[in-house]
């Protein structure tokens, strides 16, 4: 088998395993909700919308499925996969088990941007919350990147630690700015709204968000997957990676920018959903081991399915009320992760 054929074959095998699971999760996301809708109804809507089948479906059901639940499930999947892969990449690159996509100050910056637009009235109402969040995220990331670069002049050896420290400094600064803006000008309702958004909010998700989130998640995935072997080489640190032929600085810059950009977009669409980017990578590592060529697809799939599931739970757990998805990810995620941790330890003995 030729080299190229071997790669494609592996990819095809992986996709054959992952796609049915993903499709099932998205369909579940479309079916389950305050009004449960039958699978055949969901399929009829899909047939109508995608193939123009013209099957008789109640327009209200069709609206719920097509305009609300389907985009939500797709964005949740894209977002879960992107955050989990970003977590895998940053944990490997920074050699820090506590690294997550928000370690570069993105979540803090996004919240500052969001409150600057919604509460402080930046842009005089012409700017959307997503726009503010995205730019806040980029601003914070820029601050962190410049600070890390200024501090890491001594070479690549200490660079990982410098990035983490710069990220902490950046996050603290932007969190303080957010708190300042809220304390200065927010009323109780606004403060509550922002708190909900900060914990992740999928209720505003529509099709345009799908067209942004899904291609971006795929592109981010492509960039990260291309560097899987390079990430393996970071197992024993940056010097070891360099001695194995990895252009360390270049890989760091490309991957950090790729994860920062995808994370910033995801956060601007759905808010800063915690837990996924930190814990899913660890869970996936327990399942398939530390090799990145298997870990990345595993983390992406687990992250996507987990977040679609968390979104479903957030919609049905309290009748008539939607819980912030970040609350659900932590409530389900923390105990399941505890189980994995304990089991993993036993298996290692």
């Amino acid at each position, binding site marked *: 088998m030729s080299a190229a054929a071997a790669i494609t074959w592996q990819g095809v095998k992986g996709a054959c395993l992952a796609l049915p699971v993903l499709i099932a999760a998205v369909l579940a996301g479309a079916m389950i909700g305050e009004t449960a809708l039958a699978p055949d109804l969901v399929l009829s809507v899909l047939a109508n919308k995608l193939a123009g089948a013209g099957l008789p479906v109640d327009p209200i059901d069709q609206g719920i499925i097509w305009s609300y639940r389907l985009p939500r499930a797709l964005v949740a999947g894209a977002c879960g996969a992107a955050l989990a892969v970003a977590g895998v990449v940053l944990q490997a690159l920074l050699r820090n088990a506590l690294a997550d996509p928000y370690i570069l100050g993105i979540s803090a910056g996004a919240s500052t941007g969001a409150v600057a637009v919604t509460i402080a009235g930046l842009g005089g109402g012409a700017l959307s919350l997503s726009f503010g969040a995205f730019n806040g995220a980029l601003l914070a990331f820029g601050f962190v990147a410049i600070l890390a670069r200024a501090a890491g002049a001594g070479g690549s050896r200490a660079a990982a630690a410098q990035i983490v420290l710069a990220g902490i400094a950046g996050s603290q600064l932007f969190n303080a700015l957010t708190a300042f803006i809220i304390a200065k000008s927010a009323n109780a309702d606004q403060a509550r709204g922002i708190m909900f958004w900060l914990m992740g909010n999928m209720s505003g998700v529509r099709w345009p968000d799908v067209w942004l989130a899904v291609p971006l998640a795929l592109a981010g995935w492509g960039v990260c997957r291309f560097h899987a072997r390079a990430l393996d080489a970071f197992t024993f640190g940056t010097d070891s990676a360099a001695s194995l*032929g990895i252009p360390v600085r270049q890989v760091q810059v490309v991957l950090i920018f790729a994860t920062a950009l995808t994370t910033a977009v995801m956060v601007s669409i759905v808010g800063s959903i915690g837990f996924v980017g930190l814990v899913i990578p660890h869970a996936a590592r327990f399942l398939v081991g530390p090799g990145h060529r298997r870990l990345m697809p595993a983390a992406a799939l687990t992250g996507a399915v987990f977040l679609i599931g968390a979104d479903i739970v957030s919609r049905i757990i309290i009748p008539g009320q939607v819980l912030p998805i970040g609350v659900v990810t932590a409530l389900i995620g923390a105990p399941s992760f505890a189980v994995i941790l304990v089991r993993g330890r036993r298996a290692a003995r």
Partner: protein
Amino acid sequence: MKIEARSLSYSIRGKLLLSDVSLTVQPGETLALVGPNGSGKSTLMRLLAGLARPSQGEVLLAEKSLARLTRREVAQRTAIVEQQADTAERITARSVVELGRTPWLSALRPWSGEDSQHVENALKTVEMEGFASREWATLSGGERQRLHIARALAQRPGLLLLDEPTNHLDIHHQLSILNCIRNLKVTTVVALHDLNQALMCDRVAVLSGGRLVALGTPQQALAPEMVSGIFGIKARWVEDAEGSEPFLSFHLA
């Protein structure tokens, strides 16, 4: 593969760690690097491996300036075993050795049977075949060190740089690793603390305070007067009753 250091100097934060070091190692030769703690052995190793850039001077690998080669090209020619490279990942022994194939792999040149063969051979050379599926965390310091050496061997380098490779090893494995290194057909630079082990190499370079103070055959470079002055001890040649090669004996001055 020939390696040549041309008046290398290296300083960090205003502190000069290495000053005007020039040496050449011929293809297939094994050069021992000795010197007290902080004499610049590891720094010289890092410069030879291209992991740090010299403040002055240059390194030539097979007549080519190291600065002109890409990281990947350097890694296809040079492998380095550094001190204290550790990981918290739950990686198996075999995966560690497989990392050595990284510079030879790409999207168009995926893992093949040939790579597996190099990994098997490297594991065999360091007598670790039986440990291949063990997790890193369950291995002793010596076993980890042997895996690092196997990883470097799997890289199939023309130049092998070993920074105190016999640290953590019991005497059997110290001798077998050194023997293995000497029998390799690759050019090797090995930093050693045990001067009697340095006697087994083709030539010895002695560093002190960041300067190269002796370079020559083991008998020349490790002459007792030289060793005594640099390490602040008293050294003398000793021969055992069986008439083997003389070795060094030390006591505090």
